[in-house]
């Protein structure tokens, strides 16, 4: 058990994406982009402020498997939804201001995506979520819709991105509980990347953890065991599938929508199957005395980044003695 935690720690170090502010390069690129936007956006456009959102802000990022780093930035424009009946109009202004040089700018349903190409591949991308303010309210309206969307898909959606960050950041008081929660979000994302690329979305997995995660701590040995926390969490997630075999993962803030709503029935079914395999593998690894075998169970779930100890480092569990002095009485 204690050895497995060392492996989980090592695995975590491998997949962890550092804090945004720790990554000077990405930070510089974000600042440059925002500077550009400020300069190029038409004078009649409202002014804006920005904030970090997504996994950077929540400290739950993982290294992208394909090397395409993403940066999520929220832009709050000094206007209200009433000022722009068509939210795509505002998104278009952003696109137009940025669309030059080595960038490809696309208007996506929930954001404006700016891609940077290097050697013919996307090097990294920035998702700019465009928000309008609400009078006397801390929550915002998110501009949704693409350039060629029908009118019904061009809408302002009530949104509370900062509230979500608060929820995740402040779920636990204890620093250690918080750290274990973040580690488990990262493991889960990597498991998803390995087993079910794309869906469920990272935000859905993060919110699932918010709803159903419990820190797992061995009181007798004063040690956090991530494998226990994962087993507990997966069991709890499975329990929350409804009679239609559907797992609703609600956003814990406005608009409280189901973050899995864009999954197909088939994707959901596959997700459940994979979860069952995941639970079985975690349980097998947990009770496996042979460290090599235990790590192999986990590697199958998390991919090659999960470490298999070198033969020489293998913790060889000595055969346990059949009995020992009881050392107590009654």
């Amino acid at each position, binding site marked *: 058990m204690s050895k497995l935690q060392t492996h989980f720690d090592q695995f975590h170090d491998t997949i962890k994406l550092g804090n945004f502010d720790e990554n000077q390069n990405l930070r510089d690129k974000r600042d440059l982009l925002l500077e550009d936007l400020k300069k190029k956006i038409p004078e009649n456009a409202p002014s804006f402020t920005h904030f970090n959102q997504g996994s950077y802000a929540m400290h739950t990022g993982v290294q992208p498997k394909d090397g395409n780093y993403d940066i999520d930035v929220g832009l709050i424009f000094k206007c209200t939804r009433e000022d722009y009946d068509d939210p795509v109009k505002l998104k278009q202004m952003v696109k137009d201001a940025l669309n030059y040089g080595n960038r490809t700018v696309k208007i996506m349903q929930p954001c404006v995506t700016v891609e940077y190409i290097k050697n013919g591949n996307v090097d990294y991308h920035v998702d700019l979520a465009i928000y309008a303010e609400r009078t006397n309210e801390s929550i915002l309206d998110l501009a949704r819709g693409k350039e060629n969307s029908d009118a019904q898909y061009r809408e302002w959606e009530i949104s509370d991105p900062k509230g979500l960050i608060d929820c995740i950041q402040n779920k636990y008081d204890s620093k250690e509980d918080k750290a274990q929660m973040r580690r488990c979000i990262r493991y889960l994302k990597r498991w998803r990347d390995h087993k079910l690329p794309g869906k469920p979305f990272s935000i859905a997995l993060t919110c699932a953890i918010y709803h159903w995660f419990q820190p797992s701590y061995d*009181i007798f040995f004063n040690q956090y065991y991530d494998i226990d926390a994962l087993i507990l969490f997966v*069991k709890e997630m499975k329990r929350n599938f409804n009679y239609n075999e559907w797992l609703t993962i609600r956003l814990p803030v406005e608009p409280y929508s189901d973050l899995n709503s864009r999954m197909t029935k088939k994707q959901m079914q596959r997700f459940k199957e994979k979860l069952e395999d995941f639970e079985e593998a975690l349980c097998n690894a947990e009770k496996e005395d042979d460290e090599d075998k235990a790590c192999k169970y986990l590697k199958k779930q998390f991919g090659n980044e999960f470490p298999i100890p070198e033969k020489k480092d293998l913790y060889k569990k000595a*055969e346990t003695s059949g*009995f*020992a002095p009881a*050392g107590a*009485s*009654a």
Partner: protein
Amino acid sequence: MIIKTFDYKNLLLKHSKVLSAEEIDPKELPERMRHKSKISRYFLIYFQIDKATYELVISEPDDFPKTLPCIHLAHPEMHDFHNHVNFVGNICYLDEGAGVFIDVKKPEAVLHKVLSMTGDTIESSFDRNLTSLYEEFEGYWNSLPDIVEVGCFYTPGSTPESIKAFCDPKSKKKFVPLILYKNAIPKEYGYYKRLQRLQSMNAWYIPLSKSVLPPLPDSGLNVFYVRKLLNYINTDLKRKLLSILTKQKKKRKGKKEYRNEIYLFSHPRPSGKLALFGVFASGYSNKDFFSDSYEQSWKLLPLSIQRHYRSYMLERGGSSLNMKDITVAVIGCGAVGSRISEFLALSGVGHIMIIDYDILKEDNIYRHVLGGESIDINKAKAMADYLKRRFPYIDVYNEPANRESWMKGKKWKDIQLIIDATADFTGMREMNKTIFALNNPVPTVYCWLEACSIGGHAILVDGKSKGCFECLLDSKENGPYRRCDFLKPYQKITKDLTGCGGAFTPFSSLDAIKTATLAVELAIENIMNKQKSIYKYWIGESRHSENAGLVLSDWYKKAYDGNTDNVETNYYKINCPICSCNL
């Protein structure tokens, strides 16, 4: 010894309501007014209450103000009823049930408070609201002259019935009852021994429907008062009562003879509970007491009812009545198990099954409930006999067997809870597994203690929620061990006073009592409140262990510093082979 620095008479006179105070010769006082403790002096005082002046007799105890004075009406027969004033005029100005804390340095303040409370007590009856007197009927009744105490094993209900009494015709009291009962008193009960040679007589229980007032001091307990009590029975019950009385006395009707009749009365107190009092009527008559119109032929004795019946004794002892139908099995009757059996009985558990194959030896005496009289007797049997001697309302079964042979029988599956105090961890682990395999798992408490007063552990496993005994276990190269122990595993902790074969774990009876307390608390919480699986411990100082060169576990250090309520709910293993299905 308190050196008196005050003059009691002066202190009395300093009180604004005391008009005069004169010392009186104790010989002039009737016996009933004399204080039980040593009294230096008595004073007759004139005491102003509202517009009336009361003549009171106040005592000066030898050790006043450590002992408070007694205050009586000087002439109780001249007064009507007062709340908190009994037949002999004693004024109960203070409810001493919860004890009194007296500042002995302030005699004047003490005495003046006594006098003020006396005034308030008397004044409380001025509006003729005698609720307190009705409520404290028994206190008043028990102050009647010649009162006789009678033990009542009968549980009074709401209908009249014929009951039984024991008396000792060879004693001075002759046919005066000593005990009232209906169902046989268990022969094993220690108190029964003194009843063995007694003679059984008929008695009658008469529940009055309304509250009654006690006899007034000027008339006392007399035939009219008792006969008039029948007016307080409602018509239906009266008919039933008369039919019982007639049935019992038919044979003797008409003959003039010596008759001894025993009546137990109850009446509702304003608070809802019953007041109990009794009357012993003896006379030479051709009729029973209630049919006879003559009064001269009957002599009456008031009976003070001492409650020995189950519901009262359990409530009075702080036990629960709700566990009288519960069966708890205790496996292992060692230092901890014997205490557990005792504590279960004290808590009101009605049925206890004790399982142990072992014999009590002299080695056990200083940490076992049982003493020298049980040496060389099977522990389970001796403990069962001991509990039956000690408690009147308990069924204790004993199985002089080990856990495994007891479990082979079917009896244990019908019990509500098991407590395993064997410290046989191999067997406990097997039992945990067996119980989880049942369709309806029996909640089980496992408990043990560690050497050198370092601590004790108890885990309740309800079989339905997460957590079980297995969750506390693990294995290392040296073999299985308990993760929650305060001493690191595999150390030599036994002590040997006599050489090979005499090794034992050093712990004291106090350690055993603490561990048993933990186990019984968990058991009761499960029985009464459906407590789910939980682990609890008590933790001691480390110096004895350190002196013995023993090494403490990390858990000891954490538990000692932190958790003040000594309870853990997060002890379970996520992937436990036995209970993870309950996660």
